[in-house]
């Protein structure tokens, strides 16, 4: 059994691919190895026979069609490559833009500004009044708050409150002056003429109590 390297050398010797030194060395081996020499002679004869019976050039069947298809395929691949390169170029340009040193600073500043506007408690102007939190003990009542720029006011809407009976008379008072009595935990309110209007204090439960009733 021939070693693969011997077979490879044999093929190269037959095809005339060896240089002078290699050919001389290989032919020395053939002289010392009758089996290899016999094999070489058989293969050389077979090769000569094949070359003698086959034309030097063979015509490719349907060559025009074959070439056309190759050209179409090549053109298609070129277009695909060009398209891919265009997309890659676009992304490359973006990535290259993102890699600019100034972009990191600008991006950080933009994020900081965005974070300030998004995360601050109220989106309104700092010179506006703000409702920070609201709690409605009656679970049927919802408190909504927002700033109305048109009204230049901060709005707290209490939805779901029971209506005050229409037949109930609601009248207002005009308080001009108050007197606080911390010792009594009461406040007395007066009108413009100095007349006492009412006094507000707390009942035993801590709820406000207005007197006279």
């Amino acid at each position, binding site marked *: 059994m021939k070693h693969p390297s011997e077979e490879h050398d044999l093929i190269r010797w037959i095809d005339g691919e060896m240089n002078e030194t290699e050919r001389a060395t290989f032919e020395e081996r053939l002289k010392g190895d009758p089996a290899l020499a016999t094999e070489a002679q058989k293969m050389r004869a077979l090769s000569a026979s094949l070359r003698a019976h086959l034309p030097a050039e063979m015509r490719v069947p349907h060559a025009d069609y074959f070439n056309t298809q190759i050209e179409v395929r090549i053109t298609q691949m070129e277009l695909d490559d060009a398209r891919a390169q265009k997309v890659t170029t676009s992304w490359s340009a973006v990535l290259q833009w993102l890699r600019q040193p100034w972009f990191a600073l600008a991006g950080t500043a933009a994020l900081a500004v965005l974070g300030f506007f998004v995360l601050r408690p109220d989106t309104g102007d700092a010179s506006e009044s703000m409702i920070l939190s609201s709690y409605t003990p009656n679970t049927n009542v919802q408190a909504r708050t927002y700033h109305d720029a048109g009204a230049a006011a901060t709005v*707290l809407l209490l939805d779901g409150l029971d209506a005050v009976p229409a037949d109930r008379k*609601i009248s207002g008072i005009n308080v001009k002056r108050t007197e606080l009595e911390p010792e009594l935990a009461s406040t007395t309110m007066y009108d413009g003429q100095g007349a006492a209007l009412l006094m507000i204090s707390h009942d035993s439960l801590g709820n406000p109590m207005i007197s006279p009733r």
Partner: protein
Amino acid sequence: MKAFLSALALISCTALTCAQDLEEPPPIISSAKHATDGHVWGALIFATNDASQLTGAKEEAHADLPKLDQRLAKVFPFKHFEILGQHRQDIFREYESWVVPSRDLFMKIDSKGPAEKDGVNLHLQVWHKHQVLVKSDAILRKDSPLFIGGPPWKQGRLIFVLFLERK
């Protein structure tokens, strides 16, 4: 001579004191002996589309709140806005303050100290009789009133307005 000079000095001091008293504006609200964090104006307003439902109250809006009706109309869908009652009140630093433009709907204020941009931190409670409707923490600032939409009444709505008059 000595007695004359003493009498003259006494008369001069008395006259000077009287003149100073005349120059000082009268206090808007008393209780000046208690420290304050600001002064507010509160009003109870009835909003309705039916003019016949108005009560006939003739209260005027605060002079520093121009076009209050128009501003309210931008928030509440009503045509008529009637001030039922109003109250100017100190915000006491150490004690609770009450804004009572009406016996029916009024507000308790606890100061939580000054806020930036000429504001004041407040804890607010809106009361309807013996029921607290809402408790809120708020920052009240000048020229930025607070409109509180209260309970419906007579096909309209009661509105509480709170305005920081000065600090």
